[in-house]
């Protein structure tokens, strides 16, 4: 019998229950709730900024902070969605469908409470998936050789591109740009210098945390500053009404919550499909199954909880694919991979072999974060309305200074702060011209892995090493389908419409 006190499970749980880690979880909850409550600050931006100061922490504490921010943002972002009809983060788009109409009917308190309960249930389902699926998936991926690993990276990149509907080609270009950035520095196989332009600091490659902070922090804030207009604000609804749902209502909510949890859990396992899409699909599924379809979109508590449960249920699947395969489930996870690599933890096949206690730590962090954030969300926080009325400039200033000081704190390097400013400008260009930054960051992080594995595979057995591997072939076929199917479907639909003599919809005057 394995003694309980020496097992990786107890080691993992024990590391999280240490007072310092619990304190970082508490701080992470407060940051995450605030981040979620401010529209315009996404969870990705918050995790990117936090990665600046968490890199100096112990890996468990750093992970606890980043994951808790992510979890708490899933609760906080519902507040502006319900009170001012503006999603705090993209994951709460579906919350606005019924949350704001409910608030206008004087049921804001009830909407906030049921939304928090739905979000917590979704997160718990996700945590179960992580606990059950992560280790077997990681073990399966241990069989991967260079050809499969290359295919896996291409699969992850194209999945992230494929979900940026309508911007597939710009997504691919952004991914290629990220992969190119990863080539700057020394060649991963021969060690030859590439594209360093004589700059000594670039020999080690482009540091990815400054790039991430520039893309997701600085670029977003500058874009908000550039497009700022006075008197655009919306006054939050302050009539809260009833807070706690009664037994009858809770019973009625069981079905939509179940539908939301099932939808989100499945969608979460598809890499790169985030909570925003899952929330909308979960809301739609609950509407189809409901006897009161007419209420959906006009203030349905069922719709609200289904969407919220679905969007948060993706989190477990997202962490599972990130940790077990090294393929980020969403852009927050792409950022988190960057931080983990600096701590010496390489997500992907073999992670749970080298860090057997990690899965227990992850599950414990997520459980504690979910329960504590739920408790915080159920407190009747009228003060949060005041937060929503806070002028933009306070937030902008805090983010700007955090971008700079946080980047400096990674390696005490002013050069890296300049890199962050430079990539903030590049990110701004991408934002203004419709290039999604997620694939670029992913390309930068996974670039060396993709390049070295492709070249190793080709050196071993030529292109045959890729097309003779069933796993690599399946992954590459899915990757190709992910980027070719959506435009092909649109083309077929347009052709069909043209044949039927219909006009293709345009906004041309």
């Amino acid at each position, binding site marked *: 019998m394995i003694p309980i006190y020496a097992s990786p499970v107890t080691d993992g749980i024990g590391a999280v229950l240490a007072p310092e880690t619990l304190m970082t979880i508490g701080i992470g909850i407060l940051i995450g709730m605030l981040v979620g409550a401010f529209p315009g600050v996404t969870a990705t931006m918050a995790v990117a900024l936090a990665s600046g100061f968490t890199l100096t922490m112990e890996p468990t504490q750093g992970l606890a902070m980043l994951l808790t921010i992510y979890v708490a943002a899933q609760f906080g972002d519902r507040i502006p969605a319900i009170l*001012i009809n503006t999603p705090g983060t993209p994951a709460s788009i579906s919350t606005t469908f019924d949350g704001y109409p409910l608030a206008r009917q004087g049921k804001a308190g009830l909407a906030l409470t049921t939304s928090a309960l739905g979000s917590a249930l979704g997160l718990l389902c996700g945590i179960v998936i992580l606990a059950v699926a992560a280790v077997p998936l990681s073990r399966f991926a241990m069989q991967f050789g260079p050809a499969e690993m290359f295919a896996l990276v291409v699969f992850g990149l194209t999945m992230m591109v494929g979900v940026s509907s*309508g*911007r597939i080609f710009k997504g691919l270009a952004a991914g290629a740009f990220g992969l190119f950035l990863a080539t700057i520095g020394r060649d991963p196989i*021969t060690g030859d210098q*590439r594209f360093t332009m004589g700059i000594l600091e670039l020999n080690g490659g482009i540091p990815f945390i400054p790039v991430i902070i520039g893309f997701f922090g600085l670029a977003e804030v500058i874009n908000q500053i550039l497009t700022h207009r006075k008197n655009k604000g919306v006054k939050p609804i302050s009539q809260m009404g009833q807070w706690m749902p009664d037994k009858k209502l809770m019973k009625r909510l069981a079905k939509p919550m179940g539908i939301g949890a099932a939808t989100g859990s499945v969608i979460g396992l598809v890499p790169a499909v985030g909570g925003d899409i899952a929330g909308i699909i979960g809301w739609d599924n609950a509407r189809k199954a409901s006897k009161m379809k007419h209420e959906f979109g006009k203030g349905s508590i069922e719709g609200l909880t289904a969407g919220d449960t679905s969007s948060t249920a993706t989190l477990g699947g997202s962490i599972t694919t990130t940790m077990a395969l090294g393929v980020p489930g969403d852009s927050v996870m792409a950022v988190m991979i960057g931080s983990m690599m600096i701590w010496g933890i390489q997500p992907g096949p073999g992670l749970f072999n080298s860090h057997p206690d990690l899965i227990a730590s992850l599950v414990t962090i997520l459980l504690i974060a979910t329960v504590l954030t739920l408790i915080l969300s159920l407190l009747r926080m009228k003060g949060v309305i005041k937060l929503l009325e806070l002028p933009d400039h306070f937030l902008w200033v805090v983010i700007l*200074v955090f971008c700079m000081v946080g980047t400096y704190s990674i390696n005490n390097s002013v050069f890296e702060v300049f890199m962050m400013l430079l990539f903030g400008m590049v990110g701004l260009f991408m934002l203004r011209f419709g290039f999604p930054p997620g694939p670029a960051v992913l390309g930068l992080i996974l670039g060396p892995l993709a390049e070295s594995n492709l070249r190793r595979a080709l050196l071993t057995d030529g292109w045959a090493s890729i097309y003779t591997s069933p796993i690599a072939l399946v992954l590459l076929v899915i990757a190709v389908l992910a980027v070719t199917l959506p435009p092909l479907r649109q083309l077929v639909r347009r052709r069909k419409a043209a044949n039927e003599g219909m006009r293709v919809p345009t906004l041309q005057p």
Partner: protein
Amino acid sequence: MTDQPPIETIDQEAAFEAAHHQEEPLVRDLPVRLRELVSVAACIGLGIWILVAGKDIIVRGTAELGPVFWPNMLGTGLIIFGVVIVLNNVLRGVRKADVPERITVSGIAMFGMTLAIAIGYLMLWNVLQFWMITFVALALFTLVLGGRSWKATLAFPAVTTAVLHFLFIVALRVPL
């Protein structure tokens, strides 16, 4: 922060279309199409630069699968994506959601001043004491970005500087 689109702009139909990859109305105005040419120029320009700069890489040993192989693939890929963007975005048009919000004149002015303060702040980092330069930079940032009251220009910078000092210098021991 309240400066986000009001209720009318949260379009359920558009959200469904995006989530389900459905057909969306396309914008085909000339300025929008011309704007897309900038994206094309960026892709093709970067692709060509990678191919040209790749020739300067000093290769030891075999060149076929050497250090230039992967950058050449990426450079060629970027040029191809640039051409596809011409066909897809310039000739066909773009989705309404992909047309960014218009930049304002006051926004450009605020951005210019913010950038100047940020660079000045960075240059003086190792010259003046962190708390002193941070307080001044925060006050200037707030002033430039629209804060006018004493709370915004004095109290807020003082509190934020104290938090930054505690977090980075005391807790994380960053030599600032």
